[in-house]
């Protein structure tokens, strides 16, 4: 595999060199020709990590309870109050547990959802919901860092590498920006810097990275500059490359040429630009339609961010995208409707992303969802009871959602208790409650994600949930 990759890289390099040579001889079209000579192909296996920040209410989405069973009258017994009736001010929210409509050819859903799941319920046939996860914390930083790395933090300080870093470090993809961390932390404690995520806090940061330099020279002088870089270096300079450092830098420069030559920054601009080719504007219109984006486009909304995930994967820019998809969930005060509205925005954005990936053919066969694993998580959930100020506080038990490649679909694994939604003990082979079973911890989920791509999960010091793996 590595040998094949090396051969491919060498072939690309030779193609690029030929483009350089041709440019030198003809004195025309060097930079773009060079850029296009190199391939920009989607990764065979992609990963998406989507974070709902603030602590989500799983009753509203991944772990619902029937309000006809868990009634206010039984609260002292169950310690659970779904509160779906409190959403009745907005008729777009159902006030009962949601059973997805059967998808053609997929069979009926084995998963039920809360009222805020939105359009994502339509993709039940791609999902595995894991319930009753014991987060062992109700502190925000500890919870999400635990889920990011699969290692319980020291105090609030993260340990280990982010799962995306782990994946990129092991798989060594050839994508120009292997990992993007958008509005989320990223850690690397043992891999080379090439496994680091490109950390951006706004859409504009990403576009800046992919955009041509703001200082452009005369086109003929640019050509000379490219030609100068293509020259062989002296023996003395070559000595710096004895361990590949210069070669790595040259590769990075070539990648940069590829990225800039393909005008990838334009791929992340979803508004029409009159001076751009009609085909590109048509592509933008398709993205806007797929993600429900309207002018002026809010790139930093959940829908805008989901569109960027889809673009990064489909254009072959990245293998892993980690993203803080939606916030506004830490609702200790206020109404259930606020939380439900914010949460649904995230689920609908994921639904659009999944629809986009399912509808896009992957070069290696099948569609992009066949090559993509999506993990959706939050740092913990919210209390099953409503507090005195109309909100919900932090609760130790949570749920997570896995979708796509390497994961069994249309299934639920684990269960939170019917009293106070306590994190239960489950049989790891079946996912069913078992007093002699074990807690489901974040590292179990991370190990499962790594194992879904046949990666080394030893760093999690646990076994994956094999019942979930295909």
């Amino acid at each position, binding site marked *: 595999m590595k040998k094949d990759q090396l051969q491919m890289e060498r072939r690309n390099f030779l193609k690029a060199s030929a483009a350089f040579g041709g440019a030198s001889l003809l004195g025309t079209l060097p930079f773009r020709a060079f850029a296009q000579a190199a391939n920009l192909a989607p990764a065979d296996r992609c990963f998406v990590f989507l974070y709902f920040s603030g602590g989500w209410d799983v009753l509203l989405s991944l772990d619902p309870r029937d309000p006809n069973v868990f009634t206010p009258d039984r609260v002292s017994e169950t310690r659970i109050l779904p509160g779906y009736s409190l959403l009745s001010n907005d008729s777009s929210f159902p006030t009962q547990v949601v059973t997805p409509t059967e998808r053609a050819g997929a069979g009926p859903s084995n998963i039920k959802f809360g009222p805020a799941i939105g359009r994502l319920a339509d993709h039940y046939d791609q999902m595995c919901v894991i319930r009753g996860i014991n987060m062992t914390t109700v502190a925000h930083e500890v919870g999400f860092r635990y889920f990011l790395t699969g290692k319980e933090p020291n105090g609030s300080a*993260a340990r280990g590498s982010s799962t995306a870093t782990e994946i990129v470090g092991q798989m060594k993809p050839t994508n*120009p*920006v292997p990992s993007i961390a958008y509005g989320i*932390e*990223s*850690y*690397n*404690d043992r891999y*080379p*810097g*090439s496994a*680091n995520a*490109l*950390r951006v806090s706004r859409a504009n940061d990403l576009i800046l*990275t992919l955009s041509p*330099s*703001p*200082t*452009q*020279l*005369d086109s*003929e*002088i640019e050509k*000379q*500059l490219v*030609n*100068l*870089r293509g*020259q062989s*270096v*002296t023996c*003395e*300079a070559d*000595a*710096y*490359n*004895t*361990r590949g*450092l*210069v070669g*790595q*830098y*040259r590769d*990075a*420069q070539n*990648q*940069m040429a590829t*990225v*800039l030559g393909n005008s990838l920054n334009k791929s992340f601009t979803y508004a029409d630009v009159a001076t751009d080719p009609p085909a590109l504007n048509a592509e933008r219109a398709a993205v806007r339609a797929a993600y429900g984006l309207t002018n002026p486009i809010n790139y930093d909304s959940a829908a805008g961010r989901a569109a960027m995930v889809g673009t990064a994967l489909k254009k072959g820019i990245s293998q892993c995208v980690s993203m803080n998809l939606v916030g506004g969930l830490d609702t200790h005060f206020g109404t259930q409707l606020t939380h439900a509205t914010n949460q649904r925005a995230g689920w609908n954005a994921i639904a659009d992303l999944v629809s986009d990936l399912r509808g896009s053919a992957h070069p290696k066969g099948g569609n992009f969802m066949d090559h993509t694993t999506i993990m959706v998580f939050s740092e913990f959930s919210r209390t099953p009871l409503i507090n005195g100020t109309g909100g919900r506080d932090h609760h130790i038990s949570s749920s997570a959602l896995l979708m796509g490649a390497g994961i069994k679909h249309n299934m639920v694994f684990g269960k939170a208790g019917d009293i106070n939604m306590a994190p239960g003990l489950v049989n790891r082979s079946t996912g069913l409650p078992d007093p002699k079973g074990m807690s489901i911890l974040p590292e179990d989920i991370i190990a499962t994600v790594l194992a879904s791509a046949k990666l080394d999960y030893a760093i999690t010091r646990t076994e994956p949930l094999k019942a979930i793996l295909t």
Partner: protein
Amino acid sequence: MRMFLLTAVFALSACTQKATEVPPRDGTLKPVDMSNHPPIIPLPDPELQGGHVGRAPRRITVAQLKASIQTTTGRQWSQIDSLAASLGKADFALVNAESTEPNLVFAKFLEDGAREVCTAAAAADLTTPLAENRVLSPEVPATITDFSKIDAPTAKKNLVYLSTRMWGQPLSGAELETWSASFLTMAARAQVANKKKEAWGAICIAMMTDPRFITY
């Protein structure tokens, strides 16, 4: 010849005498007594070490890059602090080790920085009357305002100066010829396009984005 023989005899006699017998004169160095030196272990055979000995070459850190840009051009890249994390600087909160990988993001932002700093330095040089006060073209006589009229020896002299300034090693041989030819082509184009600052500015960009600028 007589003088040479006398010197040689004197040197030979000095080597054979004990150091304690001849007190050193002012301004002379006392030879180190090597008689009791432990055996010197030769460096490993490079052929057995993958073609290299000693430590591996490294990419400069963000702090070193910042200092290098300031030292070589006399000005600072305006974005270096805001992009420091992307260039690899550790914040010791989320990232506790400086990344010195010469990756895509580093290459991209260094390119941006080199263009900003070099074109600014080249533009400033054009308004600096004294050649010796110029940053990028101190070897070019101030009377030459049309860089396309620089002769090859002058261009090479300035390229040697710039490469020494940027990399700590002068351009020479065939590589110097190549750079000189490229400069003359760029200078001619810069004159025609009325973008004089891009003549030496482009050379500065090429040198600042060259591996020799970012490695040590």
